């Protein structure tokens, strides 16, 4: 069995990593750290672990060496303490944004912070297997992608790779769990319930990753938060450089994605669920993809849905782990979703 630890295990992403890893046939969860809950049972913070584990949270300062460590810390922490984590494990998967970009300038521009370990940036492979599989397989350090970025990149990748699009505008609809576990006045239920909240209409940080990994510039991205808990739906508008009909698009996307275990094409004309819908991927590692072509204006609208805590975070991180450790890529990620929910 492979020993794995989670640093920062009390958040929603930590809880989701545990939900997967405690059922992963090849993994032994060694330590789960939390400064705030050290000494308490995991299940007192993660109710879905009741009847499942007797493990308790431990302190990040007393870590034993393991084969692989997941870092699920607030932004800025991983890069500040990466030296210590390198002693704990030779393989690191970081779920924060600290190692997603390529240069200190990008961090100053998008995150407004000077990167403390810029020289490490190119040692981290970007954690979207569908566009970076070989590099992840051969890396010891992986930086897991942002949830909105993952949805946007996977929606556009085939078209961007073939240089067939321009004027990209992405409108994301997201759930409340994107804000993480920390509560605030704004997340107080009577205040939050039913409100539809525009969030970062311009200059959303995930644009940095989208432009970098699609080789695009001038991407427009805005996000609206609704009061469902899990899920991201991106409505991606793009102009097509040359004329394509729906069939051409299917052929192109099949060329890139037909053998991908976690990408489903959704175009079920007679079903109520004709296009991708975040509700149907809740808890799964799926990215559901569909599109509509606007013939008279040579435009395409691509629709992409994923679970921000799964394919947008923990699921994708475990997918990368499976690749790094030479396991079947889908191992531990077979959950297929619940309906109705």
């Amino acid at each position, binding site marked *: 069995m492979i020993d794995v630890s989670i640093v920062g295990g009390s958040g929603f992403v930590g809880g989701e990593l545990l939900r997967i890893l405690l059922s992963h046939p090849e993994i032994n969860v060694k330590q789960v750290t939390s400064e705030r809950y050290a000494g*308490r*049972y995991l299940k*007192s913070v993660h109710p879905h672990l009741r009847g499942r584990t*007797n493990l308790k949270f431990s302190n990040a300062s007393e870590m034993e060496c393991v084969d692989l460590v997941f870092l699920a810390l607030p932004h800025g922490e991983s890069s500040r303490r990466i030296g210590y984590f390198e002693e704990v494990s030779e393989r690191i998967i970081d779920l924060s944004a600290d190692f997603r970009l390529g240069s200190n300038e990008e961090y100053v521009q998008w995150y407004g912070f000077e990167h403390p370990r810029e020289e490490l940036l190119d040692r981290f492979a970007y954690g979207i297997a569908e566009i970076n599989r070989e590099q992840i397989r051969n890396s010891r350090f992986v930086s897991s992608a942002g949830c909105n970025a993952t949805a946007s990149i996977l929606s556009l990748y085939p078209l961007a790779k073939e240089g067939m699009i321009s004027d990209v505008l992405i409108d994301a609809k997201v759930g409340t769990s994107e804000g993480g576990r920390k509560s605030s006045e704004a997340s107080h239920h009577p205040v939050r319930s039913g409100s539809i909240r525009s969030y970062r209409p311009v200059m959303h940080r995930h644009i940095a990753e989208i432009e970098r990994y699609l080789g695009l510039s001038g991407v427009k991205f805005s996000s609206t938060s609704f009061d469902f808990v899990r899920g991201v739906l991106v409505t991606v508008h793009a102009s097509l450089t040359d004329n394509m009909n729906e069939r051409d698009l299917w052929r192109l996307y099949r060329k890139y994605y037909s053998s991908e275990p976690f990408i489903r094409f959704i175009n079920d004309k007679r079903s109520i669920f004709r296009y991708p819908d975040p509700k149907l991927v809740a808890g799964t590692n799926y990215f559901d993809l569909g599109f509509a072509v606007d013939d008279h204006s040579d435009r395409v609208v691509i629709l992409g849905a994923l679970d921000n805590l799964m394919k947008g975070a923990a699921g994708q991180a475990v997918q990368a782990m499976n690749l790094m450790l030479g396991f079947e890529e889908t191992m531990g990620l077979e959950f297929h979703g619940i309906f109705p929910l």
Partner: protein
Amino acid sequence: MSTTSSLSEFICPICDARNEYDDIFEVGELLDCFECGSELEVVSTNPLQIIESEIEAEDWGQ
């Protein structure tokens, strides 16, 4: 009040569950009951006495 049992375990005074414990009891120490989640306090070690520690009743204001 909890009855004494071998040092490697204790009985929860609230729900009667047998809890494994891999450490030495110390007076004033707080323990978690694995089964019912109550927070317990060691008030004496010889004999072992464990009571439910004072918790502010949850007040959701409803």
